C-alpha cells in the first residue's frame, strides 16, 4: 500500500507487463513496445534517408513528388495512418499480415516523413562550399553527397534521431487501438479484468514510459554534448 493505493495488482503480474505471454506465447508489454519502436525506427531511418534525399533532388519532379508524399503523411493524425494500414494492408496483400506489422508499417510511414525533414535540414545545413569543393575536384553530385555531405550531415542529425526515437516509444501506445498487446494494451487488459485499480495500473505504466523516454532523452543530450565537443577540437 502506497498512499492508499494498492499496487499488488501490478507486482503480481509484473512479468506480464514486461513481456506479455513470452516465452510461452507471443511477446507483449514493454518488450513489444520496444520491439515496435526499434524496428520502426530502423525502417524509418532508411525511409527518412531516402525521402530526405529525394526532397533535395535537383530534379524538380522528384523533389515535388517526394514533398507531396511527405506533406500528405505529415498532415494526417498518426491514428488515421494506423487505421489505414490496419484495414488496407491485409486486404492489399491478401490477408495474413499480423497486426503488429501493420502498426510497424504505419509508424514507419509516419516517422519517415518526419525524419525526412530532419535529413533535409541536415543536408541543407552543410555549407554550399563543401559541395562546390567536392564537385570542383571532379566528383559527381552523387559522390559529393555520399562522401562529403552525408557523413557530416548524419553526424549532426544524431541527437534529432534519438529524439524521434523517444516520440516513437510514446507513439507505439496507439497500437492498442488495433489490439496489439504492447504496454498500453496490456494495461487496458489488466484494468478490464480487475476493474478496481485503474489508478495503480495507469500510474505504473506512466512511470515506465517516463523512465524509457527520460533515459533516451538523456542519451540524446549526452550525444549532443559529445558531438559539440568533438566539433570544437
Amino acid at each position: 500500500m502506497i498512499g492508499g493505493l494498492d499496487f499488488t495488482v501490478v507486482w503480481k503480474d509484473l512479468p506480464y507487463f514486461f513481456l506479455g505471454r513470452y516465452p510461452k506465447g507471443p511477446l507483449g508489454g514493454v518488450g513489444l513496445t520496444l520491439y515496435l519502436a526499434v524496428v520502426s525506427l530502423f525502417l524509418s531511418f532508411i525511409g527518412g534517408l531516402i525521402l530526405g534525399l529525394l526532397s533535395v533532388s535537383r530534379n524538380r519532379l522528384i523533389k515535388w513528388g517526394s514533398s507531396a508524399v511527405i506533406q500528405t503523411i505529415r498532415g494526417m493524425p498518426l491514428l488515421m495512418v494506423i487505421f489505414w494500414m490496419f484495414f488496407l494492408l491485409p486486404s492489399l496483400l491478401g490477408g495474413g499480415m499480423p497486426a503488429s506489422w501493420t502498426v510497424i508499417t504505419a509508424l514507419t510511414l509516419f516517422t519517415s516523413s518526419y525524419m525526412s525533414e530532419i535529413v533535409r535540414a541536415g543536408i541543407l545545413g552543410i555549407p554550399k562550399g563543401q559541395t562546390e569543393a567536392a564537385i570542383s575536384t571532379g566528383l559527381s553530385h552523387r559522390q559529393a553527397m555520399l562522401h562529403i555531405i552525408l557523413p557530416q550531415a548524419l553526424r549532426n542529425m544524431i541527437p534529432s534521431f534519438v529524439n524521434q526515437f523517444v516520440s516513437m516509444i510514446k507513439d507505439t501506445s496507439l497500437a492498442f487501438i488495433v489490439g496489439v498487446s504492447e504496454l498500453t494494451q496490456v494495461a487496458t487488459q489488466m484494468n478490464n479484468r480487475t476493474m478496481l485499480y485503474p489508478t495503480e495500473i495507469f500510474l505504473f505504466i506512466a512511470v515506465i514510459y517516463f523512465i524509457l523516454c527520460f533515459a533516451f532523452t538523456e542519451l540524446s543530450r549526452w550525444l549532443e554534448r559529445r558531438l559539440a565537443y568533438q566539433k570544437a577540437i
Partner: protein
Amino acid sequence: MIRFEGVHKWFGPLHVLNNINLRVKPGEVVVVCGPSGSGKSTLIRTINDLEPINEGKLVVAGMDLSDRKTDINKLRAEIGFVFQQFNLYPHLTVLKNITLAPIKIRKLDRKTAEEQAMALLERVGLAEKRNAHPSQLSGGQQQRVAIARGLAMKPKIMLFDEPTSALDPEMIGEVLQVMKDLAVSGMTMMVVTHEMGFAREVSHRVVFMDHGTVLEEAEPEEFFKNPQHDRAQQFLKQILSPMH
C-alpha cells in the same frame, strides 16, 4: 587553354558578366582584379562551371562549356580550384582530403594516392600534418592543404578565387609562396586577388574588371605604371595606399 568569346551572364536582372573576351595561354599566370562586385569571382567560377554562362562561348582545356554534351565532371577533374574559405572537408584527415578525388575519379589505389599526396604535402611544407583534421590547422595551413588537394588531380589549370582574403596578414606570405612556386613550375593559373605584390612579381598579365566588363588587360609592369582607364587608376590608388 582558356578562351572566352562574347560571354554573358545574368543573376536575375543583374548583368554580372558583360561580353567577356579573354584568352589564357598554357603556362600563363593571369591575375584578375577589380572592386568588389565587379564580377571577377563569377568570371573565375564560370571556368569550371560552378556558375554556368548564359550566352557566348567558353572553351577550357579543349572542352566547350557552352556545348551541353560536354562532360562537366571530366572537365572539372582537369581544373584545380582554390576557394577563399578553403572548404576543406572537416570530417576527413588532411591526407584523406587530398586522396579522395584521385581514388574515386582517377581510380588510383590507396597506396599510390597516399604517396602522391605525401609528395604534395612535402611541397607545401605540411607533411607532418597528414593525420590532422582541418580544424587543427591555421588558416594558412588549411589553404596550403587546399592547394595540395587541387594539385592531386594533376590538373592542367589552377584557379584561385581570392585565396588569401580570409587569412590573417602573417599567413598570407606562406600561401603566396606556394602559389609562386607553382607559377614558376609552369602551371597555367588564373588568380583573383588584391595582392598586388603577387600580380607584379609573378603574373604575366593583369586583367582589370568593373561592372562585369574587362576594362583593361596589360602586362603587370605597364598596368601598375601606367593604367589607362580612370577606374583602374582610382582602384590602384585605393588599394596601394588605402589611407588617402
